């Protein structure tokens, strides 16, 4: 499924790509060879996955060389090419938990080193703090003397044992990383505190949505009733328990109110119980798991979008919904207040009463017709977040990082010991030394000079660019057959 979508994307980007590419050559902007590393990538679906894909596409468009490294998903292993020659390495590493690979800090070094060398990578860009492969890659990249960038996509507490441990690991992982990117200001504050960082080396670059994917279509909705749409995984952190309180409360009050719930998860049973208990089968529809391309078709059927999340770093869902012209009602948690201006979102406290009040306000606005039309909302939202803008800002980070020096081994050890506490610092300093010795051994076994240089698909002298950009039709066919 993802393939077709990816293929389609290539097509929409292609015309602009060739123009920009020529422009890049003409103005002579610096180009980088970037390796994106994360455990999470297609065919897995989610915010991180689409972030990596879209960012890579826009960076390729701007003339950089980009490759993606992730772990094998089922029989999807080896090397694949996506649209515009985006090369993806699916490495044969063992998955431990929640699609995250095991981390030993050593076992992935031979493979990653081989890739970094043969692809002539200059910047390693890791994504998501939940991905152990991303942290491994940062560790190896520093050992090999490459520049490192890390993007944090999630928020984390400080109170419980698990977060104390993960935050310590994050401190170790980020203490000598060149630059960190967060998706919202709240996320930046969180990451700076968690990893005890200097806030100057943390940039805020929000996520984006493709506005052409999320266009309004008022004809699809039924104006004889009011439909509230919820699209999220049905898990505790998304506040589905709150939703189970809101549904009966409002359905009793407004006989013309309908709920459309898209998504799957362990909390589905709670919603089903509520629907059963209050006999709301015709008014509450549970659609189950949705493909990403179906989300828009669900969104345009509603008037109001409800988000009940208990924690959220950025929340793409509310931007997608606003882009489809819906009135958004959401909890005031994490980075959500930063995402949309006040006239496009109704913010509520995370309680049933406050959310019901917010929804009632939205219903009143719809009834009185004071709401702007979906088209107006869409036109406003589409200027807020674009992937091209994200890529431009990320490129600035790369430029900055490329001018910095990677800490030499002795300074790196000093930094680890002084910054991460004496016990943890010393342990990881020892690991750093061992990993360096391992690297020396690997270099002796297979010297860099005898590793083949991979065919450049993208970038300044990309084979793909030269071969396929003149004939766009051919390129699209290739993309689909490659997927």
């Amino acid at each position, binding site marked *: 499924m993802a393939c077709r979508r990816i293929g389609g994307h290539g097509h929409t980007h292609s015309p602009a790509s060739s123009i920009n590419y020529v422009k890049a050559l003409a103005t002579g902007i610096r180009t980088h060879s970037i390796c994106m590393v994360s455990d999470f990538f297609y065919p897995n679906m989610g915010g991180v996955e689409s972030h990596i894909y879209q960012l890579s596409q826009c960076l390729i468009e701007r003339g950089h060389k980009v490759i993606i490294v992730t772990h094998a998903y089922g029989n999807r292993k080896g090397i694949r090419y996506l649209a515009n020659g985006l090369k993806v390495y699916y490495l044969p590493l063992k998955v431990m938990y929640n699609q995250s690979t095991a981390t030993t800090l050593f076992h992935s070094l031979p493979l990653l080193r081989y890739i970094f060398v043969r692809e002539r990578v200059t910047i390693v860009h890791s994504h998501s703090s939940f991905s152990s492969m991303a942290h491994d890659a940062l560790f190896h990249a520093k050992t090999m003397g490459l520049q490192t960038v890390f993007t944090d996509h999630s*928020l*984390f*507490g*400080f*109170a419980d044992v698990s977060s104390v441990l993960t935050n310590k690991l994050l401190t170790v992982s980020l203490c000598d990383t060149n*630059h960190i990117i967060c998706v*919202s*200001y*709240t*996320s930046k*504050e*969180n990451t*700076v*505190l968690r990893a005890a960082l200097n*806030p*100057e*080396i*943390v*940039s*805020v*670059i*929000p996520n984006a949505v493709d506005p052409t994917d999320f266009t309004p279509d008022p004809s699809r909705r039924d104006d004889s009733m009011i439909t509230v749409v919820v699209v999220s995984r049905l898990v505790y*952190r998304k*506040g589905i*328990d*709150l939703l*189970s*309180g809101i549904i*009966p*409360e409002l359905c009793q009050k407004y006989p013309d109110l309908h709920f459309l719930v898209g998504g799957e998860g362990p909390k589905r049973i709670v919603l089903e*119980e*509520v629907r059963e*208990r209050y006999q709301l089968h015709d008014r509450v529809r549970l659609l189950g798991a949705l493909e990403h391309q179906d989300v828009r078709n669900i969104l345009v059927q509603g008037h109001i979008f409800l988000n009940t999340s*208990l*924690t959220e770093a*950025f929340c793409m869902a509310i931007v997608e919904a606003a882009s489809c012209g819906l009135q958004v009602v959401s*909890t005031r*948690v*994490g*980075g959500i*207040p*930063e*995402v*949309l*201006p006040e006239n496009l979102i109704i913010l509520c406290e*995370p*309680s*049933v*009463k406050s959310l019901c009040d917010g929804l009632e306000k939205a219903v009143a606005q719809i009834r009185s017709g004071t709401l702007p039309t979906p088209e107006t909302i869409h036109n406003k939202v589409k200027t*807020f*977040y674009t992937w091209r*803008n994200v890529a431009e*800002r990320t490129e*600035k*980070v790369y430029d900055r990082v490329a001018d910095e020096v990677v800490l030499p081994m002795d300074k790196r050890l000093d930094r680890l010991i002084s910054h991460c506490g004496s016990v943890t610092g010393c342990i990881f300093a020892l690991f750093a030394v061992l990993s360096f010795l391992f690297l020396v051994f690997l270099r002796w076994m297979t010297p860099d000079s005898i590793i083949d240089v991979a065919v450049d698909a993208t970038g300044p002298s990309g084979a793909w660019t030269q071969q396929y950009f003149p004939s766009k039709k051919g390129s699209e066919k290739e993309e689909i057959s490659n997927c």
Partner: protein
Amino acid sequence: MVCAQVEASPGKCWQKVLYERQPFPDNYVDHRFLEELRKNIYARKYQYWAVVFESGVVIQQLCSVCVFVVIWWYMDDGLLTPQWLFGAGLASSLIGYVLFDVIDLGVGRKESGRTRWADLKSTQVFIAFTYGFSPVLKTLTESISTDTIYAMSVLMLLGHLIFFDYGANAAIVSSTLSLNMAIFASVCLASRLPRSLHTFAMVTFAIQIFALWPMLQKKLKARTPCCYVGVTLLFALSALAGLLTISGVAALLFALLLVSISCLCPYCLIRLQLLKDNIHGPWDEAEIKDDLSRFLM
């Protein structure tokens, strides 16, 4: 309000929003950075004597275990006859039973709706069964080595102390498991006594001290804190005295343990509380405070 301004466009304030392109670099740090950070908002301030009072539960339980072992020792050495133990136990149980109702003037009984006849019946059934099965309990562990029995008893009593419900809201607390471990230990030890009547008296005593006594204590603590302190002190002293008749060194060590738990540990807790550095902010996962079960009633 003071706000940072950029030379290029004076009058333009930094805003904590993502939807606007602002004339600041992406890694810009405003003076408002981390302004919503809160520290130690849920940290509790402890009073020294209040913590000492609360530590009474732990002291009581340690003493219960100590008294139990001392009594077993006396029985094993023949210093105490089972008739005496059973008689004394029965008498103190009756006193406790009366006290249990007197403390709260029978309110608890009315709420539970349990009749005295029901209490009497269950007591009879229990005594009859223990008496009937005591020969079986006596010979149950004959094939097991005495060392194993001792080791097992020590482990079980330790487990009893670990899992006991001291009033903390933690996953490890399980009063059922705790009671079962104590009874298991008592059966193990009782089976090493000379006759089956000894076994019967010992198991009955275990029930009294591990099941009934904590219930009475709980009520005492809630209703009459002064009496509770007195009872705890008395109980601790008698446990120490009992231990002293067996071994002076053990009594000394036990006294040290009690003092450190009731005086030193509260002091450490209060000192360490000052070092608490708990961070809260907008990134915390929100808590659902509503009672959502009412929607499914």
